[in-house]
């Protein structure tokens, strides 16, 4: 099957530091790829290069075979690349419902409509309520996003991406910092997404048991380089992974 998302020699330098170093990799629909590696390996930066928050120093990004290296983040979002951020990135003073409704509105392509009150777009509100149900945030819909607990903010972060209904889902440590009982909501959601074989899912995750149970494939980044790529069992057995995850316990949060 042709890749939905692909990078070729993708590189970014910050001054003298090469954060992502000539990474070539292809991702396919129906496949959940876990991206692992120690803190500072370049996972988040690699995501930012693919979803357009950062511009590559060299190399290319392809979406369904088309070169999108020059496209901005909004262009890529509208082309079907969805992103949930590692550092929660919400509209803090707007309500939980409004946060999601804005994503639904973006998905519906309603960008410049100004002659009707937003309340008359019942369809957008209903869809947003549906997404909130999926992440178990419906009871908190009228609260300001900033007033949510950390775990609920993480769920809302994921909800914004779900509401966009992208073809490519990029989860960056979606469960980091969540309490044990909150984690299953997010994992179930990812598992349900996996059932849809038209979706490409990329997941940065530190918890090895989660990776093992969800991933079809694991790639390993180390110092910005792609050092391993393959089946979960095989990759987890590699010395470099053992060293990163079992030798030294991973820190809970990364930059």
């Amino acid at each position, binding site marked *: 099957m042709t890749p939905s998302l692909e990078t070729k020699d993708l590189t970014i330098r910050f001054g003298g530091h090469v954060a992502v170093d000539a990474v070539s990799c292809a991702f396919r629909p129906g496949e959940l790829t876990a991206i692992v590696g120690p803190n500072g390996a370049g996972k988040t930066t690699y995501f930012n290069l693919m979803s357009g*928050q950062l511009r590559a120093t060299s190399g290319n990004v392809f979406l369904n075979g088309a070169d999108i290296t020059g496209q901005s983040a909004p262009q890529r979002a509208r082309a079907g690349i969805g992103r949930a951020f590692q550092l929660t*990135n919400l509209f803090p003073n707007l309500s939980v419902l409004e946060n999601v409704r804005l994503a639904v509105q973006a998905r519906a392509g309603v960008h410049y409509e100004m002659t009707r009150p*937003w309340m008359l777009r019942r369809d957008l509100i209903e869809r947003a309520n549906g997404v909130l149900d999926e992440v178990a945030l419906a009871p908190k819909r009228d609260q300001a996003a900033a007033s949510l607990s950390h775990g609920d903010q993480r769920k809302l972060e994921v909800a914004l991406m779900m509401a*966009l209904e992208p073809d490519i889902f990029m989860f960056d440590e979606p469960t980091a910092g969540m309490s044990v009982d909150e984690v299953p909501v997010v994992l179930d959601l990812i598992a349900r997404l996996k059932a849809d074989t038209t979706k490409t899912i990329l997941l940065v995750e530190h918890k090895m048991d989660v990776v093992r149970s969800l991933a079809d494939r694991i790639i390993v980044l180390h110092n910005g380089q792609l050092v391993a790529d393959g089946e979960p069992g095989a990759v987890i057995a590699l010395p470099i992974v053992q060293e990163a995850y079992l030798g030294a316990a991973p820190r809970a949060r990364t930059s």
Partner: protein
Amino acid sequence: MMILSGDGPRSKALSALLIVIVLVLALAPFLFPGAKPANVAANICISVLLVASYDLLLGYAGIVSFAHVMFFGIGAYGVAIALYGLGASWGALALGVLAAIPVSVVLALAIGLFSLRVQTIFFAMMTLAVAYAFNVLASQLSWLTGGEDGRSFQVPEILRPGFKLFEGDVFGVAISGRVLSYYLVFVVCALLFLVLLRIVNSPFGRVLQAIRENPFRAEALGYRIVFHRTLATCLSAAGATAAGALSALWLHYTGPDTALSFSIQIDVLVIVVIGGMGSMYGAIAGAAVFVLAQNYLQALMGKLSSAAADAGLPLLPGLFHPDRWLLWLGLMFILAVYFVPTGIVGRLRGRG
């Protein structure tokens, strides 16, 4: 509710205050006949429009602009130049307005596209520079603008003070061209206020708030924020231009002091803060309080001062001397910002 675009005042106290203000403005010529109250009322109406269009930018989109008074000036000069040059006809008036609005919108578009890509602080600097250049231009092109003296002009006949709509009075008030002028100002301001209220409560307006809250995330959702910000700038400029045109029509005069003075820009900022940023209703409450204070504080202080002098109190007569009214206005502003940072609207809605 739909005329309010689904965004009601959401507080009994605020609703009551707004109803009183709007009713008094609607009946002003009958409640308070005379030139001074009419000026104050018209000034409030025009300020509401000017401030509401500024709040679209500052309170909703989170963009700081110092060029709002420039767009106001473009409207005022558009009307002045057309009526002065072409004579006092409705056609000339229409031409003045229809020329001024595109000039403002194109200018706003240029500033927006050129500078909103970068940082909003750069935009603020750009607006300052452009507004300054425009000021210089307006005083240099004196053959067109009248330079420092400005332009006095005649308005269409039925808007002139000497005009009577019919013989006889309504509730003891003659329906003169002045009364008709006032209602023209009132109705246009009210309609455009409702348009602005509709815009900020539309899906587009909601995106503006999202951009204010987190531009980075708005982009990640697919919103091209430069276009949204630029469009908001253009709409805001058009609103200010309309306010300027009405101001010129009311004053029969346009000059640097009435149309381009930077103190107008300061007043707008002060009113937005007093009324409450990010709420269109703040423009109504803020403009009413501010313009009333501006016009009557001096007289009130004169009375206080002489009363204190009569009572033989020390210090107070000097403190309340009418010449110190600006000091008191400033003091009131500082106290308002310190104690009621969310403005009148925020306070009456029970937030802060």
